């Protein structure tokens, strides 16, 4: 056969795709000492940002912090290459504070490529993978195992794990009205072969769609008609390992303008020329990241929509028109953009377009991101039906970690919904019935008060440390931080101050009500208007030198929101009880009395790992869950009896 003449190269892991998922996956594997090859259609497109020029934002900022806490690269990379940074939602509670930074796109990509190129055990290969090679099962479980990949030249890379991160490249089509090109994002060459491979191996792919707005020549815009959006004066880093001093840069502004009735009229008059409404696009688009056509149709009563003008980089005059993604024909785009104040004379550099691509139904994956059907085959990123750079990177990191764990014969890292946004992301993708690109949102996290962006290190460093991506020193720092937070919280609860005249005067100067009776400093800190720093004059035994802000911030949150945190913790306890009720992989759901037919089939197909996961599968009702609980209770009783008899 052909393989006789093929040139063979030995490695441990093959990562297919060099986007945000592929980069994290390849870095995780190689950093853990496994030889890794990253395949990309084009080395120049590694870590490319073909859509928006920012990292983070509501809930996505949380993902980046979590990636960093686990030992991923995205946070460090954006800290090195940002143009502007803001902490969003500062007026709201700490759970929804969210970091967002504008990136210099070219720098972001270049900098990430440099990190990959300096990484031992990691090589980059520009090639299209045409085949994933399997061998017959060795173990008794009857599953085929990954043993290599073949690239378009015929060369074979023998390996033990494959991580598929093809993003939006597989059989991609880009649409600008009636003009359709068979290209990947940003005009890159698309890939085609793996679609057929997945179909031939019992995992038919589905078609999703997403879109992006136009890029314009910044010189053609009139900024005097827009509101300026500056970055924060004091920039908070994404990465726990970034020195905040390196962030004191000359930031670039963004600009805010609005669509108007005229814009909407043009869109409505031409809606039949939109590929989506004309039925040319087969793929399903994201509801939560709608095109301007979708917004005009769905929010017909709204007279205007936000449009943000964002810089694409320091060494380009291109700007990104956030809020107006579209797949309208070029002539409609030209007229529609020109109705927006400040864009009257705009010059389009790159058109807005919609892109359709093949992706997998993540229900075919385990929570470890390994496919249920093939041993050693992992999938991550937009290929799994997500959308967004951050969602992709998070999956890439977890797939990389779990590919390594599998080779090491260890249990996979599965983060719970109660531990991380990453846990929510992967559980949703793998368990729920997603019919459109999945975007992270704060509302998807049930326990978000515990999953704050400010405590990602306290939540997740231990997992990064356990798998070897976090150093001893970094881990010790988290332990120290945790201890100091507890000590200081306890101290503030203990120190009591009286209603003496001196104290009342201080309180008055802080703009807060006087004391009626003595109270603890912690009780005072519960007043919304008071902060940790304010209490210094009332606090005789405050640690000297002062505790760092990363500690006092946690102390303040712990004390101020104690009641809410406690109640959320109780919710988590309840939730985790069902998560801990594990379901054996070999259960015979098809003959389980009491389950409805639909539930039998869904459970048979999914093979959920716990009752908790089972309860989130669509088509499984609470009554079915009750049946599963009874079943477990019954078998537990029988097992107990069986043991008693022996």
């Amino acid at each position, binding site marked *: 056969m052909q393989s006789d003449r093929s040139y063979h190269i030995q490695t441990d892991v093959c990562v297919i795709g060099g986007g945000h998922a592929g980069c994290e996956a390849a870095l995780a594997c190689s950093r853990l000492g496994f030889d890794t090859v990253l395949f990309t259609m084009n080395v120049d497109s590694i870590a490319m940002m073909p859509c928006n020029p920012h990292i983070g934002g509501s809930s996505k900022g949380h993902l980046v912090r979590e990636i960093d806490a686990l030992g991923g690269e995205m946070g460090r990379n954006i800290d090195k290459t940002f143009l502007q940074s803001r902490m969003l939602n500062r007026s*709201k509670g700490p759970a929804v504070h969210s970091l967002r930074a504008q990136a210099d796109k070219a720098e972001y990509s270049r900098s990430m490529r440099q990190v990959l190129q300096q990484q031992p055990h990691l090589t980059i290969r520009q090639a299209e993978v045409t085949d994933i090679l399997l061998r017959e099962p060795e173990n008794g479980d009857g599953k085929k195992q990954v043993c290599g990949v073949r690239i378009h030249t015929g060369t074979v890379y023998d390996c033990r794990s494959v991580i598929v991160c093809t993003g939006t490249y597989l059989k991609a089509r880009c649409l600008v009205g009636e003009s359709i090109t068979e290209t990947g994002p940003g005009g890159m060459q698309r890939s085609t072969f793996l679609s057929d491979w997945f179909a031939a191996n019992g995992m038919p792919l589905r078609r999703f769609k997403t879109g992006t707005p136009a890029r314009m020549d910044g010189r053609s815009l009139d900024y005097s008609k827009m509101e300026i959006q500056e970055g924060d004066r004091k920039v908070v880093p994404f990465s726990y390992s970034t020195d905040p001093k390196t962030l004191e840069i000359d930031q670039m502004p963004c600009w805010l303008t609005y669509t108007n009735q005229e814009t909407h009229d043009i869109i409505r008059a031409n809606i039949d020329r939109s590929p989506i409404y004309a039925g040319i696009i087969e793929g399903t688009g994201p509801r939560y990241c709608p095109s301007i056509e979708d917004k005009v149709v769905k929010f017909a009563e709204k007279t205007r929509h936000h449009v943000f003008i964002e810089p694409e980089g320091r060494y380009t005059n291109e700007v990104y028109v956030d809020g107006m993604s579209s797949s309208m024909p070029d002539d409609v785009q030209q007229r529609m953009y020109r109705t927006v104040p400040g864009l009257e004379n705009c010059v389009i550099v790159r058109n807005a377009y919609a892109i359709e691509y093949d992706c997998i139904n993540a229900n075919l994956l385990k929570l470890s991101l390994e496919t249920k059907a093939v041993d050693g085959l992992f999938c991550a990123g937009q290929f799994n039906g997500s959308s967004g750079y951050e969602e992709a990177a998070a999956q890439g990191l977890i797939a990389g970690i779990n590919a390594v764990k599998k080779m090491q014969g260890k249990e996979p890292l599965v983060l719970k919904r109660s531990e991380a946004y990453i846990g929510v992301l992967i559980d949703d993708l793998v368990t729920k019935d997603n019919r459109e690109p999945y975007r992270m949102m704060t*509302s998807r996290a049930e326990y978000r*008060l515990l999953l704050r962006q400010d405590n990602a290190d306290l939540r997740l460093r231990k997992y990064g440390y356990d798998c070897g991506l976090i150093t001893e020193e970094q881990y010790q720092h988290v332990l120290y931080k945790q201890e100091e937070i507890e000590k200081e919280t306890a101290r503030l609860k203990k120190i009591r101050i009286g209603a003496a005249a001196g104290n009342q005067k201080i309180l008055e100067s802080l703009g807060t009500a006087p004391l009626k009776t003595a109270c603890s400093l912690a009780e005072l800190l519960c007043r919304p208007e008071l902060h940790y720093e304010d209490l210094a004059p009332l606090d005789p035994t405050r640690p000297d030198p002062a505790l760092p802000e990363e500690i006092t911030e946690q102390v303040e949150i712990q004390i101020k929101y104690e009641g809410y945190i406690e109640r959320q913790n109780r919710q988590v306890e309840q939730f985790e009880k069902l998560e801990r009720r594990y379901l054996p992989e070999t259960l015979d759901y098809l003959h389980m*009395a009491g389950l409805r037919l639909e539930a039998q089939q869904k459970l048979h197909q999914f093979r959920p790992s716990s009752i908790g996961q089972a309860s989130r599968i669509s088509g499984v009702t609470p009554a079915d869950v*009750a*049946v599963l609980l*009874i079943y477990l209770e019954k078998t537990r009783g029988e097992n107990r009896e069986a043991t008693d008899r022996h």
Partner: protein
Amino acid sequence: MNIREQAAGTDRSEDTIAAIATAMSEAGIGIIRISGPEAARIGSDLYRSPKALREGRREEIGAWTPGTIRFGYILDENGEVIDEVMLSWMKAPHSYTTRDTVEINTHGGLFVMQRVLELVLSRGARLAEPGEFTKQAFLGGRIDLARAEAVMDLISAQSEFARKTSMSQLRGALSEKVRDLRAEILYELAYIESALDDPENYSLDGYPERLDAILERQTAALGDLLRGARDGRILQEGIRTVILGRPNAGKSSLLNRLAGEERAIVTEIPGTTRDILRERIRLGDLVLLLTDTAGIRSTGDVIEEIGVQRARKAAEEADLLLWILDAAQPLTEEDHEIAGMIRDKMQEGIRCIALMNKQDLEVRLTKEQILAMPELSECAPVVLSCSARTGEGIDALQEAIRDQLHADRIFMNSEVLLTGIRHREAAQEALTALQLVRGSIAAGVSEDFYTIDLMNAYKALGRILGEDVEDDLVEEIFSKFCMGK
């Protein structure tokens, strides 16, 4: 064969089970339900239509159109007709239990009913455990948990009125009300989340005030449900009635009169002390859960403190106090002591009826004298005359109890009643959670905090409907299913 031994089989999920499905009563009309794969065969073994009986042949019930009810006879082992019945046939899954079901409506009274059941069991059915039909219905997806529990209440309901309410709950009145509340909460949760994720299209300006108004209405509605829960308990368990009075006022004879009148002592539960005895008795269509206190007596000039304490303790959880006075004797020190306690309890909202007993003797006590007691200057009990010995005044007592407890309101209206401890607790939890949200609004906390407690309320209400399943829930429910009929 001993019925209990039969019930103690091993693998039971595919058993055919049978039991008397309606409460046994002297009226003698009752249904024997057979549910499971052998139901039709067992029914066919015992049943003969008039024609089949004449022709001396067997008739396969399983061949009938499902949902058919037919007249006929039940034969015993010797082929003798033992009862005229109506027999109905329901095929899985279109039956209450979702399994093949045969129901035999008997007419011949308690003895015959038991005889028919024995015959059914002798043909291979197993005696159903209490609530097992409902358990099958629940597992078959036929009913939700709230309905399942309402059925359990029905099984344990002790009086006719309780049965009526159980029926209305069964029809889903409670489910509907809770479902409405829950849908509203879900809407608000979704709104807050949308506003957090998409502030451009969903504004939170003025939202806290709007939400507070909604929550004010919802907490009031939940409060009503919980008050209904007390009424629900009265329906389910009976009116907790404490008899007070000094020794020899006639408490025992009244008790005997009440109990003897209907010969309906259902249970005897020894109280926590040997001096307190609880009895469930039936008074017309009311069920009283009677607690007889040992009596408050004086030795010399001193009132025995221990007797007062016991009586107070018994009165703590009472719905109704019955104060027995000896109408043949003038008021004593003990009566004044009791009057003081009556006053305290009435001020807590507990109803009281004073009974001037021994009207058959020479009466030396008037209603006016009782009402003139200084202890009763602010709140006076209803005062009635009766004779426990002759039965005079007992009907009036029944009427007074109905009046006092607004029994007609409780029993007759269709207000939703939360019965069952689990429902009460869940409703209380939801109420507390919504109050916490109102507290957050008042404290000016950011909107993203509201969702924690809103979600708790949503989940608590979900537990009433069985739409939110928690780890311990099923165990809890089925331990209830296994309680007595």
